[in-house]
């Protein structure tokens, strides 16, 4: 997050991407469970559910990509680096930026994994 041109990373910016991943997981899980857990009409097409999950997935991926881009830019702006042992505001900033970057990558992969079933399952079987 940039305020007056300066980065201000904190725990909220750090957990933004995993929170989106969590939201995506719950949304997909609850919607699929709502549609398929009754275990009835298992051969009925679930196109609506798949489209809804696809839509939310696109929004979630875009948001995670924005977080990723921001974290990457800020981390690279100061030359990157993986040493975070110093007890200074700058080192803390680099640590948070790099951690945000890694968590955003993990969240991106996780959201893609969670979405895979909609390309395979056309019904509830």
């Amino acid at each position: 997050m940039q305020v007056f041109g300066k980065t201000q990373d904190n725990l909220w910016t750090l957990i933004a991407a995993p929170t989106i991943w969590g939201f995506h997981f719950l949304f997909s899980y609850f919607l699929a469970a709502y549609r398929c857990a009754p275990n009835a009409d298992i051969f009925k097409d679930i196109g609506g559910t798949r489209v809804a999950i696809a839509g939310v997935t696109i929004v979630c991926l875009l948001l995670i990509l924005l977080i990723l881009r921001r974290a990457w830019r800020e981390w690279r702006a100061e030359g990157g680096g993986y040493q975070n042992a110093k007890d200074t505001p700058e080192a803390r900033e680099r640590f948070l930026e790099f951690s945000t970057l890694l968590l955003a990558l993990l969240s991106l992969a996780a959201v893609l994994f969670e979405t895979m079933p909609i390309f395979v399952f056309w019904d509830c079987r």
Partner: protein
Amino acid sequence: MRPRISAISALMLPVLSGCKGAQSAFDPAGVESERVLQLFWIMLAGGTAIWAVVIGLSFYASRGKTGPYSDRSGVRLIIWGGCVFPTVVLAGLLYWGLEIMPELRRPGDGPTIAVSGERFWWRVAYAVEGEPGVVRDLPRGGIPSANEIWIPVDKRTEILLSSPDVIHSFWVPSIAGKMDAIPGRVNRLVLEPTETGVFNGACAEYCGTAHALMGFRVVVVPEDEFEAYLEAQAQPAAVTDSPGLELFLQNGCAACHTVRGTPADGDVGPDLTHVASRLSIAAGILPTTVENLAAFIASPDHLKPGVEMPAFGVLPEDQIARIAAWLGTLE
């Protein structure tokens, strides 16, 4: 060298012989079990390859190159070896595993059989019509049987599963994967055997004291043989007036067991109309012989701890023998 190979073979023999037989996922006789075994071998090969690479790398790191690594090469190793490689491999495996499922669960083209897991036996009903679903019970009626399921080869038989007591799991390792039988819910499993024969099934979810003794047999036969079997099972018992029948009725057996064609119409325990035609009694644990029937009547709890049937050992031995002999005629 040769004696050493023989010794290794001799040691491996008991282990590998366990991979064959009527209850082995390593000896598939069904479409689903073949796919599951294929999945297992590929996972095993992949797991072995990754293990070998990791062990090789750690050996190289500790013995081959003992000097320090640059930051750059260390990060590159972590990114490619620790992040990109597992993500790509897991994505591939996940997609492959997922795309197997709809194919295995496509609609059946064979009979529909209702199977109820009950502590500690399997209630079977052929020729039923029903659907899977929650807040639903298994369809009633049909042609009743117990602990033995006949299905036609090369047909997709739909098994509808449920339970009136606790969760059980229906598993025939040679033919398909397992599926839970859950109270208040009807689940669906498709069995598509590719070979004829007799296969063992088991309860694969701990359900109580006699869980390990809750087995069943699956008999896979050609379709015409299956039709003939169903027709025979639909008939009432070929009952003759016998002291065994009288004793069966006098001693209250009819309160729990049905023998169609007699006044016995209990619904608690297995239907015994054609009990002598089955390969085993007491849910797959004993071959069907008059001696085993008598032993089970006398002390079921001894043979199958936890069974709900009371012991009839208080009856004189000759009476038990007569009941068993009569049951032995019910083919």
